[in-house]
């Protein structure tokens, strides 16, 4: 018993070091911009760079659009599959997992072939429609996370009986979806939303190949030309991601604290 505990601790410490040491190294390096002293100069430079603010703002906006589009697509789909088409679940799960096995570069090349400026639907013809195409791409990319989070939430409540209870009380399907189902899977939707947010903020391939001014390509550009700022940006990106994860936990705990043990 005691030996197995020691083994578990050793494994945990090795795992933690594997993740933490590079992060500490990156953080320490980001503080060395001023020769001979530690400072937050690299962070100051990054945070006052108008390109940083523009690209970060653009990515935040795209992330919000992606979250809304993802939720509108995934929640009713997961609800309907749980309620009326449970036999389709394996097929839908397979489709939602495809973005994990198909590299983003293949997806984006597919988009470029389908939606280039001389195609039947020229989504890349101007900046706004390319933004739309990029948000569609992000929805695809975030689908495995969003669908899984929402589906888990749906499974944790008795969707079928709650729907029937709503129906027998005279409610329409829309009323049931918005008044009964949505509020009860809110935490699951939020989890999916924050995961989507974290993915979109750092995404490079799609934004770069569609030539959009997102945070991912900005990170790459800075990394190729500067020394200390990329480390500062990497730490900032980590903090944003961790903040998202933290919010998922806090919201999840708030909800579960309301429930009986």
């Amino acid at each position, binding site marked *: 018993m005691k030996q197995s505990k020691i083994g578990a601790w050793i494994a945990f410490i090795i795992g933690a070091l594997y993740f933490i040491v590079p992060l500490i190294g990156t953080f320490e390096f980001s503080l060395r911009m001023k020769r001979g002293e530690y400072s937050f100069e690299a962070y100051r430079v990054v945070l006052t760079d108008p390109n940083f603010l523009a690209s970060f703002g653009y990515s935040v906006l795209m992330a919000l659009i992606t979250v809304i589009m993802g939720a509108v697509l995934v929640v009713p789909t997961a609800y309907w599959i749980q309620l009326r088409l449970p036999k389709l679940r394996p097929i839908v799960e397979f489709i939602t997992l495809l973005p994990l096995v198909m590299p983003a570069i293949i997806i984006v090349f597919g988009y470029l072939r389908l939606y280039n400026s001389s195609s039947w639907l020229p989504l890349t013809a101007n900046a706004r429609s390319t933004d739309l195409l990029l948000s569609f791409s992000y929805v695809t990319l975030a689908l495995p996370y969003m669908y899984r989070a929402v589906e888990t939430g749906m499974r944790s409540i008795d969707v079928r009986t709650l729907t029937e*209870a709503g129906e027998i009380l*005279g*409610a329409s399907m829309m009323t049931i979806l918005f008044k009964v189902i949505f509020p009860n899977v809110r935490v699951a939707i939020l989890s999916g939303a924050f995961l989507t947010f974290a993915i979109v903020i750092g995404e490079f391939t799609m934004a770069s190949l569609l030539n959009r001014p997102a945070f991912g390509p900005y990170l790459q550009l800075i990394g190729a030309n500067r020394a200390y700022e990329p480390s500062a940006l990497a730490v900032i990106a980590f903090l944003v991601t961790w903040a998202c994860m933290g919010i998922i936990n806090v919201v999840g705990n708030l909800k579960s604290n309301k429930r009986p043990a």
Partner: protein
Amino acid sequence: MAFLEISDVRKQFQQNVVVKGFNLGIERGEFVSLLGPSGCGKTTVLRMVAGFESPSAGRILIDGKDVTPLRPNQRNVGMVFQAYALFPNMTVADNVAFGLKVAKRSPSEIKSRVEEMLAMIKLPHLASRYPYQCSGGQQQRVALARALAHKPKVLLLDEPLSALDAKIRVSLREDIRALQRSLGITTIFVTHDQEEALSMSDRVVVMNEGRVDQVGAPFEIYNDPATRFVANFVGTLSVLKGKVLDAKAGRIQVGKSEIIASRKIINHNVGDACSVALRPEAAVLENGHDLGSGRNRLGGTIDEVSFLGSVVRIRVKIDDDAISLDTFNNPSAIPPQRGAPVVVSFTPHDVLVLDGETKH
């Protein structure tokens, strides 16, 4: 025409026919239970009345209106589910108010109706609690109030007591019945628990393999079962192997003894094998004192004595068969010992002959 009419309803899931030609008329204010084992089709019938399943054939009429093509939200029926199905994101009061809000009643009407319903279920103090803060019994009362709040024409109860513990189950079933009587609402209650069905209902519908085996008052179902299935399913029954000696006179040979059945034995000829059935309360141990002539008597030995509290159930071995009989617990009397020889007696009226129909 009855208030709720279910005519020739059939339900088929692919090749599997789960309800076969179901006919039932329920009068206004009547409490009818659908009783049967799992898979007999009782819940499917209830779900067809609710509108959650569409009949493959047949019609359902409520108050003279054909509701068969209508969706559940257009039928004006209330339903209580086995798993409560309260909305977890709403308080008790919001749950009760849900149907009224959907029907776009005025806020003042909703408020007074919710207060009235919570007072009716004796839980006005729980109005602001969430379902998870209530016990199972309280949640089911709230579900009942929610189902009744919008004044439905028919109340459907889908095994509402089966998730509760024994004591609460008994008290809630009494409350449900009292409430149903005071509101005079037509009610269908689905259960596999014969005690619930017999104690609560005006009429009981015993279902078997998608068909109605018998419809009748609880007293009738128990004392005069129409089929072997009903006799076996409702109540406890001891079955003995017998041979018909005289069908007209009701003479049957059981082991080496002869007994008389006062009901006519039909579909049997002399020499046919038959099954003789007895309810546990019909048989008594004579214990040396003669209970009079005209009774059937069978000799045997005590096989098992089970103490059930107010009742002591005794199993008496008779040849290869056994008879179970119930006696009231008597603290001053010593229970009979296993292996002791006894004489079991019962009246000819108590004898049920099961192979084939038995009628008075």
